[in-house]
Structures are given as C-alpha cells and as structure tokens.
C-alpha cells in the first residue's frame, strides 16, 4: 500500500524504514522543516511536501503515518480520516482524552483503521515477561516497578520541552509503561504522581507514580528525562512465587566510542533482535489492513493510556491521588 509519511524527525525516519520493510511503499514525505522532508523523500525516491495537512489528504496515499508533535495528531488524523486514509499514529495518541475520543469517532465515522504505535507491547523482553507472568511462573503478581528514560529529548526550544505540548515525560515516555501495565494487569483504580517539569534554561522532567489496580496490584513507575546522557529501561515484577528483573543496560553488546568532540563519551548498550519491535508493530498494522486478525493495540487502549497519563499529571498538579471512573477506555 502507498504511504504518506508526516513528520520526518527521528521517529519518522524509523517508521519509514519499518513501513517499507513491512511492505508499504513510501510515496510522500512531509515535514514543516523542508530540508527534513526533502532528504527523507530523496532516500525513498518519494515526493516531498512542507505542508503536513496537504500530505494528509494526498490523493495517491492509501495510508498516512503520523510522527509529528503530539498536539498535531488530532488535526492530521481528522484530515486523513476524512480523506479515507488508514492511519498509523505514533504514541501518545493525542494530548488529551477528549482529543482521543474525537479521533476514535472520526475513524469510526469514516470507516478507516487507526493504529497507535504503543511499541512496548511488541518489545521481545516485555513479551517474555508477560508470558512468564501468564504461565504463572512467579505466581500471583502483587507489585511491579518500571523505570524508563534518560536524557531530556529535543533541542532547546523543541516542542518536547514545552510541557503544555508534550505533557512531559509522563505523557510522552511513561505512557509506554502505563499502557503495558494495563495490557497485562487490567484496569487501574487510582494513581498518585509527582512530576518535576522544570523549564528552561536547564529543562528536565522526572515523574514518580504509584498506581493501584482493580486486581489489587501496586505499580510504581518512574519516568526520566533527567539523566545527563543515555537511555535505560528497567523492570521488576514480584509475585508470590518469584520475581522477574530486566535491565536494558545489561546487554549483549555495548559500544563506547572514542569521541572526536570535546564532550564526555558514553557507553551505549545495544540489544539487537532480528525483527525490531517497530517492524513487528508495522507488520501487525499491515495484517490488520489486509483483513487478518486484530492488532495488539486498539485506539481504545491508546486512549486509556492517555487517560492514565492525564490522571497522573492531574495528581501531580493537585498533590492528591486521582481515581479512575469505571472502565477508563470507554
């Protein structure tokens, strides 16, 4: 199928490569930053555009991939859906639950398929942990701690650092873990969170959240945009018969480059797998489009993840726990 890529930043580049590997043809690359659109288009021998909205209704494209700043997701989804395109949208789904709900309504109305890239559901290490849990290997799970993050993303002035746009580490990064927790353990009951959200000139964010789930589970989640460098994910899952631990810094391959610049160097752990989890999510999306099965993540799931992150942010602002009403994804 023919795909228009909107957003030619880091995630856009990754999604273009994975989409192609999953059998899509990249025919158009759009970005408000013209050189980014041009160079990506050159790589895929595609057309380019500096106007995302035009790209979203491109007559040739059957599928639109959205990898743009979070607040632009809904407007682009609206245009693409009204133009009858199927949509792959990077997480977080939208900035607010209200926007997510509208996006779902549009997808239903225009009968298009909408997929949100909650890629952690496809990560082999997280899938291995989920399987161990479901096999009962560690018994009944009572407590989970997930930590994720590293350096503050984006350059000075980037939308990531404008918390009104990005929702900070809670909405942009911790949402992975919030989604995975709900995927594995079901609906949350309440959340308490603290969030740092420091702005310029030394921006950093650091979020600490504790959730109680309906099944009694307590989950502690730490989101980090505050390390001087690097990126690290850890998981610890405790049951009444044992415990699982995962640490991304404990990797089969680590690279420590001799930097030519003056800055300090860092060790980069690498966890190569034959099929990248990003490819797996694109293949899942592709299978859905061709009428085979349903994907691992639905727009309702992605909306629930936004609801969890929004509640965490609300708790951090109010300094009190926030309760989830009933099933949050309805």
């Amino acid at each position: 199928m023919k795909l228009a890529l909107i957003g030619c930043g880091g995630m856009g580049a990754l999604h273009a490569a994975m989409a192609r590997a999953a059998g899509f043809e990249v025919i158009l690359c759009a970005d408000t930053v013209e050189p980014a659109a041009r160079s990506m288009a050159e790589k895929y021998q595609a057309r380019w555009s500096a106007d995302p909205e035009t790209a979203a209704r491109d007559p040739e494209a059957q599928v639109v991939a959205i990898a743009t700043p979070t607040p632009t997701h809904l407007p682009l989804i609206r245009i693409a859906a009204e133009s009858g395109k199927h949509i792959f949208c990077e997480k977080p789904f939208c900035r607010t639950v209200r926007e997510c709900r509208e996006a779902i309504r549009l997808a239903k109305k225009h009968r298009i398929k909408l997929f949100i890239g909650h890629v952690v559901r496809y990560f082999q290490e997280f899938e291995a942990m989920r399987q161990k849990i479901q096999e009962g290997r560690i018994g009944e799970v009572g407590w989970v701690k997930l930590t994720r993050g590293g350096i503050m993303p984006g350059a000075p002035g980037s939308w990531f650092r404008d918390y009104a746009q990005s929702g900070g580490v809670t909405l942009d990064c911790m949402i992975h873990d919030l989604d995975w927790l709900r995927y594995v353990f079901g609906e949350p009951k309440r959340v308490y969170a603290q969030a740092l959200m420091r702005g310029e000139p030394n921006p950093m964010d650091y979020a600490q959240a504790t959730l109680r789930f309906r099944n009694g589970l307590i989950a502690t989640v730490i989101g980090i945009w505050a390390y001087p460098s690097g990126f690290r994910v850890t998981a610890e899952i405790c049951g009444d018969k044992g415990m699982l631990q995962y640490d991304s810094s404990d990797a089969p391959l680590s690279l420590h480059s001799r930097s030519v610049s003056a800055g300090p160097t860092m060790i980069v752990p690498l966890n190569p797998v034959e099929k990248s989890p990003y490819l797996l999510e694109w293949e899942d999306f592709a299978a859905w489009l061709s009428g085979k099965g349903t994907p691992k993540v639905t727009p309702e799931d992605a909306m629930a993840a936004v609801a969890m992150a929004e509640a965490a942010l609300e708790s951090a602002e109010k300094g009190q726990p926030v309760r989830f009403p009933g099933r949050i994804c309805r």
Partner: protein
Amino acid sequence: MKTRIAILSFAHMHAWSYADCLRQLPDVELCDIWDDQRKRGREAADRFGAPFAPDLDRLLGRKPDGVIITAENIRHRELTEKAAKAGCWVLCEKPIATTVPDAKAMIRACAKAGVGLGTAFPCRYATPVKLAREKLQAGELGEIYAVTCTNHGQSPGGWFADDRLSGGGATMDHTVHVADLLRWMLGREFTKVYAEVGNQLHRRTLKTDDLGSIHMTMQGGIRINHIASWSRPASFPTWGDVTMEFIGEKGVLWLDAFNQKIRVFDDTAGKLIWDGWGDNPDLGLVADFVDAVRNRRAPSVTGEDGLRALEVTVAAYKAARTGKTVTL
C-alpha cells in the same frame, strides 16, 4: 575501667551483630544479656560469653553504663523508660517505637533522667552512604530535585509479621532507614506523605503489609518515592538493599549502599549468593554509642531522629488507609 553495656532482648536479629561489635571494641564489656525468652537469651549469653540475666530489674540494679534495646518494636518504650530510670544510656533498635506518642514518651523519659537516647540507624555509618552525603553536601549535584529509593528485604517472618508486636509490616520495618538517610543527607524535613500499602506477595502466609510505595515531599519541594518491601524471594542472592537515585541540578547520583559484593555460585545452597565485603556499618553505630556513653553525650543519631523517621512511617499508613495525602 571498661564501659559496661547490656543487651536487652535478642528478639531482633541485629542484636547478634551489635553484640559482635561490642566484642570488637576496646575496653567494652557486654556485661549482661536479658531476654524474656530464656532459651534465646541463654543461647546468646553462651555465644558471647556474657551472663544471662532473667530478671530485668536486677540487671538494671547492677547499673550498666548503657543498654542496647533489641526487643520487639512494641516493647521499646517500656524498656527505654526502665533503663532511663536506672540511669543507663540507651541505644534503641529502629523503628524507635510503633506510635508517635510512644516515641515522644521515650525521648521525655531519657531527657528527664539525663541519659542519652540513640536510634539504631546503622545505614548512616555505611561507608558508601557517607561518601554520597559528602558529595551532596559539597554541592556536587547542585540543588536536589527528586529522589527515588528502595529498602527491599526478604520476609523476616516471626514477630516482625505480627502487628501486635511490630506495629506494622514491611512499611514499618523498611521506611525508617531511608527516611532517616534522606533527612541526614539532604538536611531537610518531610512535609507531605502519600502511600499505597498492602500485603501484595504473602497473602497466604502473612497477616501484615509486605510492601509500601511511599511518596514524600521534603522542604523545598524535593519529590521522593520510596519502596519499603519484603519483596525479595527466598531464592534472591542477598537479603535485600538500600538504594537511592538523586536527581540534581548538576547531575545524578546512584547509591546502592551494600553493593560491594562477590558473586558466589554455590552448589550446596543451590543458588547464587552475593557475599558482601564492604565495611560493617554496625561497628560505627555501636562505637558511637559506646563513645557517647563514655563522654556522657547524646548518641550522634538521636531519639528525635528516630521520631522524625517514625512520623513519616505513621503518616504513610494513615495516607494508605484514608487515600489522602498527610501533611506533617
């Protein structure tokens, strides 16, 4: 003249280590061991070559210079008050008590009797902790914004899991060390507490909480999460941990206080064992107490320090019960 220290009860396993420390220190005599369980008391007395005193009043009548109280948490107050009345310096195992009024009464009793009261927070004497504190106080991290901590352990069972004797489970057992370290290292007091507390992993075997995820705020708005737990499985390679991640203006500091270990792959035990080789923090704690006794000064870690850490713990239980933050 030797400094005469008695140990009151071996209910808490730390008593064995403290007794061992007393033996290592010069000019110190473990003069008496009292225990309400004769078998346990006699066993300790035999091991350390000290007399076993079945009668606490007669022991106190022999006027030891100081006592180390390692009884069940609920008994700390009664034993402290008796020892203070007898003019003994007191080093009390943590948590100092199970309720704030009890802790305050202990502090009052010792002040009235003119004796020093110390809380056994040996983590302050762990060498990596001391170095971390030096770096924080030297400003190497600049302003501290947030801290994420753990004090995990294995389920100790016995009276620790009996609220009537312990005052609470893992949250009571494993909050105070880190609460004290945070105060000591950052020089701030706690202002607000929220917690989720539960029996998450031992529903069939324990009747108390084995996990607390505790959110605290300190003066200046420092955001803290601490996990107090008995979550380490029996197959875990060590007893547990004390860890702290400090997020600061100029950097990040990771402390894993007891992570000085060799890995022992032990076929006899059928599991991996982490064998620690770092300095023994208990020795610093006991040495400070003996020095305090000799110089008629307050121990470095005071009863008030014990009270402050207990207040956070009590607030955590209250927050968990009410579902609301508790202001200190």
